[in-house]
């Protein structure tokens, strides 16, 4: 023995706990297996009893009561100060406002403020002022495509809803973010509200908001607000708070007031991050604005839904393409604007996508290279000084205004001309384009249907059917016990209590069976998501080349509004449960993959080198060093994956996914099912909270 032993054994602090916990980790595995065994046993003996299955047209007392409430709100609301006075005023104000904008900007009757040509010119001018030449070209091309493809009115409507919502978000969100950064108490009060707004699947609050604001533009805007506000507030707060401590300190030492500090130090330094927040807010708004078509919101969501419901892939794809192009346009433009807004600031963007849950965990990363290079090129390579640019803008304003004026006079400039007869360009108009897409889709589907169908059948037979049978064909109380046990084993008693409450809520909605079907799809999709995310994420985390190849695709996928994922999924898998699952997978893979990749890359190079020096093989490196050390990221990715998947699986109810999502849509279509749709929304929320809590506590326990 040596004389050089370290002073004393570290006192058993909190850090000492993992020793015990790691030991329980294996025991937990065994207990879970035991639960599984009991579960299967119960399934074998009790299958088919007390499943609480409710036929599509059936309702429960609660659902009927919701219907009554709705009727009362609609009838009596006329006289109620709150419903009519407050909400009614907001609703009709928004309706009128959007209506006016629509009438003058997107509709194509001569005599409005602006014809299409005028809109195009003004949009280009504004983009040039904010984001530079490259973005201007992009905007011009996208708007021209919308016109060509016969999507002008719907496209501009989408933009109106999105932009109005973003403006309101900025008016509300920026001061809120500032207030939160300045007062810890405000932050403590608002943060849980933002959490709730972001944890709730968007489909769940569709129905209640529709109840209060009536279906239409106002409802669309409010929905979009609820969805798009949190990222902006969060990123604003984060940006202000992360202004370097010593800079703030230096400011203080000079004796600045709090206000001066904010205006002269924090805001200028956080400007860049705040514009990133506006980018995230815009993308979230667009995503929701398309979904809001379900509550009769104006815009491109409508043709997509109509086409989806008739399973017309070609038509859905044309409108979907319009949405994607608008997404790219808005993303590039706001990114370029943010590049411009900081001289040499660090380039950051939130990983959290404009998903249904938004970026609940705010992970900031360096902007991918392609984005900075491409988005930035238009602005970085400036050959005009700022004052020169201002001059050019001022000079250009005149022809823009003249053009705008003429666009109200001449039919050709007011109404987008029908070019379907023109060679080449005619191919891009709605009819032929839809046809081409249908042809292409058919060709692709024919070519790979063997593979896709095989995959579909395999997953359905091996995972989906058995699991669904296990979860939904049981007496409800057995399944409730199983969930409780799993929650307890994975997360401890806290999530178990939450699970119990959530189960009670789901039971109360009368939709237990459907909730279990939705849960099954969510779990299956999450498993697939994690398989893909681990494979891609490990490749990206280990190799720079894989990263540069894959990351742009992930970034691209993340800008696509959730809704659009349904189109290709429908084309490949027809209207089945599997379609919803695959759409959910496509939607959740990017965020999960990025988290895994960041985790693997985050493994300390010193450790990797030390492992390499022991003569480790590549596979040993992945399985024994990199994945275990990235465990935290894996758990986080699973958590995010689960929530993304849940929200998308629900939306997928529209195209054959059935269960809860389908019930919500039916709630809007059939008056007497309104209450059931509302109940479905509540059940989804309960599922979301349950999964989130279990995943979070499990993460805290196992994701050290």
């Amino acid at each position, binding site marked *: 023995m040596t004389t050089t032993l370290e002073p004393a054994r570290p006192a058993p602090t909190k*850090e000492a706990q993992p020793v015990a916990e790691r030991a329980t980790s294996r025991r937990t595995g065994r207990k879970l297996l035991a639960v599984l065994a009991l579960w299967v046993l119960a399934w074998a003996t009790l299958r088919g009893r007390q499943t609480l299955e409710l036929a599509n047209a059936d309702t429960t007392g609660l659902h009927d009561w919701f219907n009554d409430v709705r009727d009362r709100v609609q009838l009596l609301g006329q006289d109620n100060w709150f419903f009519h006075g407050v909400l009614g005023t907001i609703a009709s104000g928004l309706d009128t406002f959007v209506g006016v904008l629509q009438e003058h900007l997107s509709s194509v009757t001569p005599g409005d403020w602006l014809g299409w040509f005028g809109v195009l010119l003004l949009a280009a001018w504004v983009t040039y002022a904010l984001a530079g030449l490259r973005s201007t070209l992009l905007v011009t091309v996208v708007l021209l495509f919308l016109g060509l493809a016969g999507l002008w009115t719907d496209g501009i409507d989408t933009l109106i809803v999105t932009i109005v919502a973003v403006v309101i978000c900025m008016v509300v969100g920026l001061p809120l973010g500032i207030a939160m950064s300045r007062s810890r108490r405000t932050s403590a009060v608002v943060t849980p509200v933002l959490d709730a707004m972001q944890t709730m699947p968007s489909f769940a609050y569709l129905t209640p908001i529709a109840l209060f604001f009536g279906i239409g533009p106002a409802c669309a805007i409010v929905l979009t607000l609820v969805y798009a506000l949190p990222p902006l507030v969060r990123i604003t707060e984060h940006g202000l708070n992360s202004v370097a401590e010593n800079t703030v300190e230096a400011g203080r030492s000079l004796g600045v007031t709090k206000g001066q500090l904010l205006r002269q130090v924090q805001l200028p330094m956080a400007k860049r991050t705040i514009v990133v927040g506006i980018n995230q807010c815009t993308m979230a708004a667009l995503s929701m604005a398309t979904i809001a078509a379900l509550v009769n919101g104006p815009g491109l969501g409508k043709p997509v839904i109509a086409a989806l419901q008739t399973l017309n892939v070609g038509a859905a794809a044309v409108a979907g393409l319009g949405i994607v192009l608008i997404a790219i346009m808005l993303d590039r433009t706001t990114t370029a604007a943010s590049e411009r807004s900081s001289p040499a600031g660090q380039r950051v963007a939130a990983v959290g996508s404009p998903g249904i849950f938004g970026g609940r965990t705010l992970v900031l990363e360096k902007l991918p290279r392609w984005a900075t290079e491409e988005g930035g090129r238009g602005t970085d390579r400036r050959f005009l000084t700022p004052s020169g640019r201002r001059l050019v803008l001022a000079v250009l304003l005149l022809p823009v205004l003249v053009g705008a004026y003429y666009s109200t006079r001449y039919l050709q400039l007011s109404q987008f001309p029908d070019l379907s007869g023109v060679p080449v360009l005619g191919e891009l108009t709605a009819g032929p384009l839809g046809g081409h897409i249908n042809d292409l889709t058919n060709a692709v589907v024919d070519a790979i249907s063997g593979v896709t169908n095989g995959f579909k059948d395999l997953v359905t037979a091996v995972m989906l059917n058995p699991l669904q049978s296990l979860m939904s064909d049981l007496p409800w109380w057995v399944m409730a016990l199983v969930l409780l046990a799993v929650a307890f084993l994975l997360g401890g008693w806290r999530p178990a209590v939450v699970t119990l409450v959530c189960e009670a809520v789901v039971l109360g909605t009368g939709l237990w069976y459907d909730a279990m079907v939705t849960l099954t799809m969510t779990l299956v999709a999450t498993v697939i998501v994690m398989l893909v995310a681990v494979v891609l994420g490990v490749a990206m985390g280990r190799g720079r080349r894989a990263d540069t190849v894959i990351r742009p695709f992930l970034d691209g996928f993340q800008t696509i509004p959730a809704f659009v994922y349904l189109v290709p999924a429908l084309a490949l898998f027809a209207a089945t449960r599997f379609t919803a699952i695959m759409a959910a997978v496509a939607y959740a893979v990017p965020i999960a993959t990025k988290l895994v990749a960041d985790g693997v890359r985050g493994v300390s190079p010193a450790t990797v080198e030390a492992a390499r020096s022991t003569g480790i093989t590549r596979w040993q490196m992945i399985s024994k060093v990199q994945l275990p050390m990235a465990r935290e990221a894996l758990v986080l990715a699973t958590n995010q994956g689960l929530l993304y998947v849940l929200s998308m699986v629900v939306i997928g109810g529209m195209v054959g996914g059935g269960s809860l999502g389908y019930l919500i849509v039916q709630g809007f279509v059939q008056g007497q099912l309104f209450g059931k749709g509302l109940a479905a929304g509540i059940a989804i929320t309960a599922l979301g909270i349950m999964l989130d809590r279990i995943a979070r506590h499990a993460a805290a326990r196992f994701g050290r």
Partner: protein
Amino acid sequence: MTDLAVSSRTTSATDATSAALSVRGLWKVFGPNADKLLGTPDLELSRQELQAKSGHVIGVRDVSFDVAPGEVFVVMGLSGSGKSTLVRLLTRLIEPTAGTVVLDGEDLTGMGEDQLREIRRRKVSMVFQHFGLLPHRKVIDNIAFGLEIRGEEKSGRRSRAQEMVDLVGLTGYELNYPDQLSGGMQQRVGLARALAGDPAVLMFDEPFSALDPLIRRDMQKEVIRLHHEVGKTMVFITHDLDEALKLGDRILIMRDGEIVQVGAPDEIIGAPADDYVRDFTAEVPKSHVLTLRWVMRPPGSADEGAGAPALPDTTVVREAARAVLAADGPVRVVDASGAVVGVVDDEDILRVVVVEQRAPAGAR
């Protein structure tokens, strides 16, 4: 130290065939076209010039040396001098641009990935400055990691790892996780992991630089003790001259990727190769390092100093001081065979000690 190590003090290099590690003409040039640069006159440029001209950085420039079995070979240099690069070239964690490395009789340079992996698993282990432990594994599993990698049975590797735990003095901490240990203890884990595979050669890259001075001293003693117990060949990288002098049988001094001098500690201090090394070693207490060989003078007459017991020429001045000062006249110095090679008197000793007393004061 083993006999071999001692003998290597005097011979500056062993012949390549019996060496534990033999390095010839090793180069590492960082940069996109490093291979094409070889053999061009550009390589004659200084590091700074080359970097300015083509963006290439010379990490290691034409380094050759041999390490005898059982020897502790220290590579010393300031930060950025290429030590880490050199030690990584020795196991091809970094690919050499040119040159050969022969480890335990096997030429690593032409080896395929599989053979190389086998070498790393069995012949050579490394200890790193930042430990490189796996945070998700217990101490014992960290130590057994290398054994696990090469596919040994669980019970076998556990018992071997337990031996190592005891050897490095971590008994009782087997089931802790690395982040529950202090830095010094973590590095003990690193040491134990390296020893567990029973390699022929151990390599250390500034293993104690991240530790507090007191802990560092303990760990240095620990390495000396382990070297006594297990007698491994060691290549030890450090930027700390004290550490180098304390541990090294021989020391290689590097600057800008090049060898400046190779030699035993007393050779480095007694005969610095150039001003760089002289400056470097100026503050070292010479009486602690120099042996009588460096201070003796040829005997004036055959019987000079015959009155007092003779001292071996490898005795360090500080240790000889008492005996020499106590003797009435000069004292004889003898080599390993007992032949008289010189004499020292009080003056020779005092010269070293007094200069030492004065030098730091004068320097400031």
